[in-house]
């Protein structure tokens, strides 16, 4: 099971993601905006980061840029977005496993994606 940080400004979406991932047995932390997420990222480094793009203050892309400097422990990043330019979102973050999930999304599929990232990480670098 993984430690997951969810950055999302919409309380309902944040709530439902946390509900599903907790139910899957993950350790989930919530952040209502980019700055709060960056703070928590430093305090309690997660295995997986789930972030929305449009957030007040620091948006998801800025957050991604910030965390990609210190991402050696990060198994993957899931970017939730309303935007169409998915390729542009995932580009420019070498060394970070970025997945773009367009809104509206299915929570079960998000849970499956998290499980997939976990299993990929497990096969590529078995825990020491």
């Amino acid at each position, binding site marked *: 099971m993984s430690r997951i940080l969810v950055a999302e*400004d919409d309380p309902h979406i944040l*709530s439902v993601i946390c509900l599903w991932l907790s139910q899957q047995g993950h350790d989930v932390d919530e952040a209502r905006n980019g700055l709060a997420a960056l703070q928590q990222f430093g305090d309690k480094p997660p295995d997986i980061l789930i972030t929305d793009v449009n957030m*007040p203050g620091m948006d998801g892309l800025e957050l991604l840029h910030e965390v990609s400097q210190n991402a050696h422990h990060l198994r993957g990043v899931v970017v939730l977005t*309303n935007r169409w330019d998915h390729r542009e979102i995932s580009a420019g973050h070498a060394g970070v496993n970025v997945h773009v999930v367009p809104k*509206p*999304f*299915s929570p079960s599929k998000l849970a499956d994606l998290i499980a997939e990232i976990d299993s990929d990480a497990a096969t590529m670098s078995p825990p020491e």
Partner: protein
Amino acid sequence: MPDNPNQHRLKRAWARITTPLWEGVIPEAYGLALAATLIVGLVGASLCASYAVSRETDALAAESVRGTARVVAAALQASPQDDPRERAALLETLCKSSGATSARWTATDGSLRAEWRPKESKAPLDVPTHEASIQIVDSDGVQAGTLQLGMSPHETQTTRRALLWGNAIVAGLALLLFLRIYWKLHRHVRPIHAVRRNLTELARGVENDLQALSLSDSLGEVASGWNQLIEELVRLRGDGDAPHQSGDAAQTVFDRFEARTLRQVLDRLPIGVLRVGLNHCCVFANRAALQFMEQSEETLRAAPVSEVLGDEATALLSAQNRSPSPSSFDRHSGPDDGGVTLRYTVYPSQRETAGGERLLTIEDVSFRYEAERSRDRFLYHVTHELRTPLTNIQAYAETLAKPAFDDEQTRRECYNVIISETRRLSALVENILSISQLEVGSARVEMGEVDLVRVLRQMVEDNMGAADEKSIDLTLKLPPKTPRIEGDKQRLSVLLNNLIGNAVKYTPEQGRVNVILEVEPQFVRVTVSDTGIGIDPAEHERVFEKFYRAADSKIQAVTGTGLGLAIARETARLHGGDIHLESEPGKGSAFVVELPLSKSSGVEVEQR
């Protein structure tokens, strides 16, 4: 039968001879002939009259001579003289006293009995002498011979002289008149004839040296007018790009007139029009084209258009030689958002236009791009705003369907979110429809008398729950009397609800929202003020734009469609009013709506 060229040439030659004849010489000759006839008639009549008078005078003179002769004869009979000398003396006396010029008395046998002749004739030679013969009978009743008396009566001479002078004067006057008519005709017909002849030559194009067609100034005003025309024509030809060696010169004048008119029309067009020659140099550019390219016509003529328009245009112009349909490209300058986009279109050369020239138009299509950008922005915002409630509905519906989440609290939360997000979705759809209709002017408006006080009370009541949740003090202040206004009650309700709802939404807890209604002579004013975060003056106008959300994170943290204020402004304007914002960051905001009072709004609603 086809036209024989020789025949044609012959016809033209004949026409060249006959046309001036008919059009110049003959009218002049006719005029002169008519004048001559009149004058000859006049002189003839004068001569006829002279002749008649002369004859009458002659008859009278003859009668007078006969009378004198009779008197002389009677005197001779009365005193017969045997002596020849006495006879002669008597005859002389008688002749001198009667004014006779000669007298001869012959006997019956033919012998001369007496004769008198003045020693020197004083009578002018041109005055005829009237003669009369009278038989002389002596006192015995015997025939004594014949008296021949010559006389030149004074009256005849006078009359003849008068007639001579009269005729001379008439003839002189007639000559003067003729000369005068001739001079007049010559002055007026000659230049017209000359102009006509020259015009014919010009129209045939036989004369290339226009100066040779100018007329002598001595021909008067017509000639000077014609000469001015020729000078203008010479000037116009000089202006032209290439001298027209052949072709219809008169047509050229017309074409140039038409070209000038056309140029004036083209200069008024908002579209740039360029004619580009085969050497890629500009032959013609209208005013708009020069403005778009920021060039003067001289520089444009001198250099190939590729230097001004770049390689893209050159490629297009070269390619256009082969393409049958117009082709175009757009070039953008200035900032991406805004700036100017010009569309260059090259039209194929037409066979009938000389020298394979191409037509290039330049159009400002910025507004099309702006419309496209605006549409894209709208679509982006709409889909963006739709995705959030849809995401919630999908996620919570799926949660509800999953047996793992079967506890009562989760299920209730799912239901609540689905219901609220569905409401949000339908409100959003409603707002999008509403703003679209308002913007294009197709909104259905049901105008009627609106009791604004009642509407305000209702809207405040509707927002009271939300205000209470945040412990916001929501108050309504009304004037003692308010006239009804004319408007669409439903739309005005939405307007006021948007303003009050926003104020409650963006005001922090423990804040205050005041709704104030004021009545002015011409309009009513509704002010919705709050103790919220305030809005930077730079954003005062932008808050009324569609989907605009202030950059402030506190505002972005609150859900909204970004259409409420846009709808409010459009609705206020639909009612002939307007809305504006008075706000400073940190000092709260006041949205002020002014709606005109209807002209017939005499009914006042009194506050209870």
